[in-house]
């Protein structure tokens, strides 16, 4: 059953999806090893999303230890932040835009050590695929 985007149920479902994905487990085995890999994905408000949403993903070494929506773009637990307008995220998640292309164009903003993120780009690609494959009701 499709879960509305931006809800706690959606965050929990994504965490479960990550833990069930052998693709993510393998691709992200080194992500968060020896450094804080917790991610904050910020979905900026735009025409389709009236209020911004910030998803904190506690991910390390191929597993998800929890996911929740938090209030602000700055969160003490986050090691890395990825920030873009919601419509761009949707383009990325639906395969119309590559995350690295959005990053190169400066539309997908990175907080934290960008090179570290690029060192694990295959892990982030597998993560985004888990988000994509989650049966989601996105705001229209």
């Amino acid at each position, binding site marked *: 059953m499709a879960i509305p985007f931006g809800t706690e149920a959606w965050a929990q479902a994504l965490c479960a999806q990550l833990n069930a994905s052998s693709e993510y487990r393998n691709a992200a085995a080194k992500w968060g090893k020896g450094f804080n890999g917790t991610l904050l994905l910020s979905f900026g408000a735009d025409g389709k999303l009236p209020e911004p949403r910030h998803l904190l993903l506690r991910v390390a070494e191929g597993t998800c230890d929890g996911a929740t929506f938090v209030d602000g773009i700055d969160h003490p637990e986050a090691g890395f932040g990825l920030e873009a307008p919601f419509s761009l995220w949707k383009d990325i998640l639906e395969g119309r835009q590559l995350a690295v*292309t959005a990053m190169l164009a400066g539309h997908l903003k990175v907080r934290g050590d960008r090179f570290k993120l690029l060192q694990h*780009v295959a892990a982030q690609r597998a993560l985004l695929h888990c988000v994509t494959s989650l049966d989601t009701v996105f705001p229209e």
Partner: protein
Amino acid sequence: MSCGYDARMDPLYAPLQARLTGAVFTPDQFGRDLLTNFGHIHHWTPRFVVEPRTPQDVVEVVRFAREHGLPVSTRGAGHSQSQLAISQGGILLAMQALSKILHVDQRAHTVDVEGGVVWRDLVHFLKKFSLVPRVLTNNLGVTIGGTLSIAGIGVASFKYGSQGDNVVEMDVVTGAGDLVTCSPEENTDLFWSTIAGLGQVGIIVRARLQLRRMKAMTRTYYLLYDDVRRFLDDAKQAMDAGAWDHLESWASPSVQGTKPVEGRRQVFARWFFPFHLTVEFDAGSPPDDRALLAPLKPYEHLYTDDLPTIDFLERLLPVFELWKRAGTWEHVHPWMETVLPWETAATYIEQVLVDLSPAVQVGGHVLLWPAKGTTSRSRLFMRPEGEDLVGFGILPAIPPQYWAQMKPMLAGASDLSILMGGKRYLSGWIEFDLPTWKAHFGARWDWMKACKRRFDPDHLLNPGFVPDEVDRPAPVEGR
């Protein structure tokens, strides 16, 4: 005459032909091979194809084009993969018609050639003098004017830079229709905006190339590495040792099974790194294997091969023939080639190879080439800062029906390379937007565009690839 087309119906046919000693062809007269290039991505139809017989023919074509507002594109062997070597409604100059080897100076170790000479023909011609161009591309079936317009990278580039760095002098027909001699000392803006200049300012009709003495034999050591970082350590050692004449390497897959990549199961591989190090030697004076290999730490030394040097230079010909027989030569070739900073190269290569399908080896390969940025003076062959660089290329042959599926992977690899400080090598498949073009050339962009305005004032030469900015104010000249 097919399709009811009559060349005489084109009002410009007769006046163009009347100006030339070479031949003019209209769409009913030339083959479909001229509608695309090796990339097989873009398909354009020129209004005329001209086979110039003399440099003056090229001058006349450009002057005629200016008079009639026709774009002019140049085609050597057509090995380009983007919007080069094809023409949409303009004049396509088939430069292989200008194929004379003009003069060898054995004392100065130089040769003068016309722009349409194919490197293979030159190499075989020079054999009797025991001379060879300093840098040769892996594929010798391309023209001198073509590779000089891109840069021209080969297995000796770590010593001698690009082919463009080994040009002593050129005759160039500018977009203004002038025949101008230029060199690193004379008409330098024209010279350096023509070398690796993507045909934007002029057409190379003659080049004087620096040669070197060639020894009769080569010995190649086939080393294999199981770790990209150890390979790079040895590649750097080999570049610095001063003992090697040619360095060549690949990434080679060992297929392991299938795994999900973005949800779709695909074959995946453990990648290994063959490293071929070659020295030339005179018969009777073979190299000291032990001394050469002592500093290197491969996973395995597989083979040692002695070949006449002329055969070494043609070493990939059987591979290309195999690809042609298999039909993959006619597939889509969106080659993604990039030059990486040494510091990020290993990480980049690991990230790209982890999900790269080994099917890329069907009619193609994954190349690595250790390089020295300091060996090149070229202004428009863009490379990262730093002395030690690594070239990396995914060179696939993709059946047309799979191109759309493969494109995001190659686009992602391209963008990731740029994010990691790399510079794309522009001979391959390029789909830059204007900001990316500007970022690619950086501070050289304004100089390049100023040269375009100065030497091709009507913006007629090789349109459709590098974006035009006709309305921009003129920037400051110079390097």
